[in-house]
Each structure stands twice: as C-alpha cells, then as structure tokens.
C-alpha cells in the first residue's frame, strides 16, 4: 500500500515484482536476518510503503537459497526462540551489486523520461 494524496492504496497482492530480490539482498548484505525481521525492516525503512503478504516472503527466500545467493542456519539469536537465519553468500553479494547497478540505470531512465533531461535526481 502506498500513500497517494492521503489515500492508502495496495500496490500488489504478492511481493513487489522484479525488485524483490534486490530489496532482500540489500537487507541481508548488511547483516544476517530471519524472515520476520526482514518484513519488519522493509516496513520500517519504506515508512510502511512496502507492506507484504508476509507468508509470500518465504518462497522468495527459499528460492534465493536454491540459487546460491543466500545460505540458512538455525540460531537462538539474542535470547529468543530458535529461528532460521539467512546469510548472503559471495555469489549473493555479486548479484546484489549487479542488481543495484541495473536499478540505478532503470530508475534514472524513468526519471529522465518523466522529468526530462534538465532535472537529474541523484
């Protein structure tokens, strides 16, 4: 859901399409996280713009593991229940850099089209 002129609108039913992997890898390359932690962090950082059907996060995480971008392990963390943590791999970091570059190019191109050449937002 995003706020558009005060009206809260749902963006999509599942996770946010193509940039999902970029978002997840971005959070994981900072530190290892478990599923719920990732959801919370996404909500906090996006000022609740990104709100997901939380369960749909897990197929994506498992897919990332199958692709070798992350690895998982069980840990009790800081005095809590045992949770499955996800850790980014070397391959994952490489993939993150690539996707980030692609996103930069993509978003700049969109802005150029919308705002014209004069206004370049960093």
């Amino acid at each position, binding site marked *: 859901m995003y706020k558009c002129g005060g009206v809260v609108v749902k963006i999509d039913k599942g996770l946010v399409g193509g940039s999902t992997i970029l978002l997840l890898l971005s959070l994981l390359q900072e530190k290892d996280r478990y599923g719920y932690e990732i959801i919370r962090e996404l909500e906090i950082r996006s000022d609740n713009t990104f709100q*997901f*059907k939380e*369960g749909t996060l*897990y197929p994506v995480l*498992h*897919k990332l593991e199958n692709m070798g971008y992350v690895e998982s392990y069980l840990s009790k963390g800081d005095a809590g229940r045992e949770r*499955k943590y996800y850790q980014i791999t070397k391959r994952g970091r490489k993939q993150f850099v690539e996707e980030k570059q692609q996103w930069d190019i993509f978003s700049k191109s969109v802005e150029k089209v919308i705002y014209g050449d004069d206004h370049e937002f960093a």
Partner: protein
Amino acid sequence: MNLLKSDKFIKEVLSYIKFPFDREDIKKELEAHILDKMEYYIDDRGIDKITAEELTLRDMGDPKEIGIALNKEHNFILGWIYKITNAIVTIFLIITVFTAGISLISTIFSGNPAKHISKEDIVYDIKVNEKVKIDDRVIKFKNVIYEKNGDMNIVYEYYDTKLLGMGWSLGHIGTIKDNLGNEYFEGSGSSSGGIITKGVETMNDFSSEADTLIIEYDMYNRYYKVEIPLKVGDSNE
C-alpha cells in the same frame, strides 16, 4: 502450538508441499514468524490474543498461494535424489573406512614375522635395511637372524607402489647363496599383511663360516643383488 487457527493455516500451506521431508522445517519457520507477529500485536499494540492471531493470519496471506510457491522451491524429484545419494554416500563411506581400517590394522598388527625365534637360540641378529625395487614392488630386507641350530632367517617386507592394485604376492625373494659358493633352498617361509606384507624366509644348515649372505634375484629380466656381511665366529646376541 496450541493455536488452532494457526495450525490449520500452516497445515494448509504444508498440504501443497509434495516432498514430505521438507515439511517439518517449513512448519517451524512459519510458526516462528506467526508467533513473532502475534507478539508484536499483543505487546506493542495491546491487542488480545484471539484478535492478534486473526490479524496475523490475515497478514500472512493466502495459504494456498504460499504453499504452491513454496512447493516450487522444494522440488520433489531433486529432494528424493538428494536423500538417496546421501544414503548411498553414507553406506559407501562406512564400507571404505571399514575396509581401509582392516588393511591398516592388519598391517600394524602383523608385527614381527620372526617373533617365534626365542632369544636364547639366536647367534646374531643383523640389521640390514636394504631396499630394492622390481616393477612396482618395493622390497626391504630388514634383518637376518642366525640361530644356533644353523637356521638362517631373512626378515623382509614389501609393498606395491601402485596402491590400488591387488596384485600377486612375491613368490620368491631370490636365490640365497653365501660367499663360499653354497646355495641354499628355502626350508620354510611365511608372509602376511595388508598394505605392507611382512615375511621371513628360513634356510636350514647355513654355514657358520660364511661371512657374506647373498640374495640374488634374476628372473625374466628383473635383477637385484643384495650382499649382507655376517659376523663369523663369536656368538653375539
């Protein structure tokens, strides 16, 4: 969990996971998430348990959608191949360690092939430590023991440098002669071992006057000659 609605939710997700052995892990992961979210509603938002559960399950999404998407990432066939190859590797490793272990143990425990000779019978025991090689076999002559009854024992060991092969054992260490021109024929011999074969060859009525023992192998264009100086005369230990 004693939360009926959550259990039902998770059960439905799991019903779409075809590979049974991954279900338990997925169950635990979803349970943890649900409990975490409920805790948030209860602790941070002051909501009651029952409503918290409802809100949480609503936030989770559609169990069918989640189950189907998860199932895609837990391929049934790959899962079984994984399980089967794991089992075969385990069996193999056990067999390999076992057979290697037996070889190693029989080598270590085969001990000294000449241990049946008691010390009082020994006139002299000379360390030889000479090494020869024919084809892929390395033969080490360790020592020679001369007994009061005239028996001359040659203690040796050998191994194959191409470890993988299980080859023929060494038939014959060579012709045994002394410097006086006598030739001796094997009275008795024995050998045993795993990776390293240890053996002893015993000649009867070996001359007490000879000062050199000669072992000469000359067969099918393979040749070696080992000359061992002996102690003559006094009976040392």
